[in-house]
């Protein structure tokens, strides 16, 4: 069992009257790739900067490797940060940039050169040591920033929106490379991002942050399949959420009565107060689109997990097609259908009447 390398205990940060981080407690385990995910302004960057030491908590404690960081300035903390703008020093060569931290620490010249070149090779920039930053591309500058931080052998590496400035192709490539790098180097990575694809693909664990508080702390698959509340369900991927009343709640089954779509049947219990108002969430890819009358809710009693509607919108995305379906109740939902064969996208079109069904394991009941 790994020890928590970073312990955030009841940390609050206020800027005047505005609360950026609201009583957050969190343990980050050594060796994991932890991602803080959330919309702009949710407090995730503030939290990261507090770990690095550039902001001080208004209340609460931050411990790194068991040591309280109160009163410890950023240049004395055993963590290093890769900044959003990369912050590569423009007046120093690549090699000098990477060697800067070692020079300050008084490391002998020969060792600085060796370790710096090693670090550059790690990020695939070997041979570029003599270049000046303005001769490099954005992606290359990011690698310099990475090498510069990693060469210091920190206990934790912090990354502030590492992929936001890269184009789509480079972003996809860097996602793999960062995860690979972390695996190779073995230290803890903490990343901050607003991009859920990034988070899902790189993280070993994700903390979703909303308005300064943790909305959910889970692995990527748990986050996607078992969101804890509506915010997380909606933030990660698309989702259709129906409000309803929990009418049946037994260990092996549950039923939610939703005015907009009818009865939703689940094959597991929910443990919510009986007759309570809840929300049932179903992902677009978990709903099956069928011709009128052909939808059959599997493993569900007659009439459950079936609905009728009309197609009001369509987006062909190549690998799948997104449909906007207006249910009989007037509610619009999203359904995603994989184009399994070449002609699948021709099966349905605008104003077609359709019927929908889904498996009882698909819906997630949210109490918040």
């Amino acid at each position, binding site marked *: 069992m790994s020890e928590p390398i970073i312990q955030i205990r009841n940390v609050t940060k206020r800027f005047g009257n505005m609360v950026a981080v609201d009583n957050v407690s969190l343990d980050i385990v050594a060796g994991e790739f932890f991602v803080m995910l959330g919309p702009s302004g949710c407090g995730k960057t503030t939290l990261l900067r507090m770990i690095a030491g550039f902001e001080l908590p208004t209340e609460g404690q931050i411990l790194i490797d068991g040591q309280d960081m109160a009163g410890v*300035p950023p240049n004395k903390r055993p963590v290093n940060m890769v900044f959003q703008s990369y912050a590569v020093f*423009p007046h120093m060569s690549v090699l000098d940039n990477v060697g800067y*931290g070692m020079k*300050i620490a008084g490391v002998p010249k020969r060792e600085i050169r060796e370790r710096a070149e090693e670090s550059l090779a790690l990020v695939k920039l070997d041979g570029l040591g003599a270049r000046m930053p303005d001769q490099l591309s954005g992606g290359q500058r990011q690698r310099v920033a990475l090498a510069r931080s990693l060469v210091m052998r920190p206990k934790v590496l912090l990354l502030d929106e590492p992929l936001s400035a890269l184009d789509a192709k480079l972003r996809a490539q860097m996602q793999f490379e960062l995860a690979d790098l972390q695996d190779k180097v073995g230290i803890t990575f903490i990343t901050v991002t607003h991009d859920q694809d990034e988070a899902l693909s790189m993280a070993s664990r994700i903390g979703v942050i909303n308005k300064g508080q943790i909305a959910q702390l889970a692995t990527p698959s748990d986050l996607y399949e078992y969101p804890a509340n509506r915010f997380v369900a909606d933030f990660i991927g698309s989702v259709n959420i129906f409000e309803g009343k929990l009418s049946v709640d037994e260990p092996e089954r549950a039923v939610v009565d939703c005015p907009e779509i009818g009865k939703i049947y689940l094959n597991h219990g929910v443990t919510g107060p009986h007759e309570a108002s809840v929300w049932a969430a179903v992902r677009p890819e978990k709903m099956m689109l069928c011709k009128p009358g052909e939808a059959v809710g599997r493993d569900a009693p007659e009439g459950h997990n079936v609905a009728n509607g009309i197609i009001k919108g369509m987006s062909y995305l190549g690998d799948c097609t997104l449909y906007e379906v207006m249910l009989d109740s007037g509610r619009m939902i999203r359904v995603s259908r994989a184009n399994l064969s070449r002609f699948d996208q021709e099966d349905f079109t605008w104003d077609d009447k359709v019927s929908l069904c889904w498996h009882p394991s698909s819906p997630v009941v949210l109490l918040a």
Partner: protein
Amino acid sequence: MSLFTRKPLAPLEYTKRLWLRSWIAAVTLFLYAPLLVLFVFSFNDSKANVVWRGFTFKYYAKLFKNDGLMSALGNSLTIAFLATVVSLVLGALAAVMLWRFRFPAKAGVEGVMALPIVVPEICMGVAMLVFFAAIEWPTDLPWPLNLSAITIAHITFCFPFVTMVVRARLANFNREEEEAAKDLGANEWQAFRDVLLPHMKPGLIAGALLAFTLSLDDFVITFFTSGPNTTTFPVKVYSMVRFSVTPEVNAVSTLLILLTIILTTVALKLQNIAGDAGAHK
């Protein structure tokens, strides 16, 4: 044929229009004609400076033998040098203070810092005269200390210009670079020395050149703070112009113009180099 087939002008290409070009030509002529006349007549072999009598260098030679003028020049250069050095330090400090910190009455301090730029020169000159008289600043110190009053006055009106220039340069500094330095282990002073100062360099150079030029050129403020033994170049030229127009004045003027052109070219060259180095910003 090309007279009749002109390339039609795009609507916004104002500069290519004839009337605008003529206007600029006229304005340029207006601005430069007097200077050119000065230049030409500095080689005129005539005491009266009126009719062209022949080409000569003799007034340039006379210039260098004119002790009063040469010592005034020496004073000006000394003052300019000292004033520039101190203005650079004060101006850079003030720029960093205003750029980096929030403090009570900051708007007021900013306003006061900008005042020497805005206040009419005569008011400043008068204030300096009155001040040095009121505190009975010693007037019989040996050289170069006797230039201290003038130097202090120059520093006072020069350093706000340096502040302005350096502050403009600081405005586009990426603060994350400073944080990165600290993150890598640098303390406050090391981060300033290794990251902020190199960024400020072009601004410091521009500020130094500006301060040097302002000090060298100043007349009004110096006029009020200088004495018979502490004349500066512009003040000496003024008395030559006012009281005894000698042809050397033309020669001196031409040299000063040349000096300005050289300094400006150097400044621009430095700006370009510095600009390219920081271009990717």
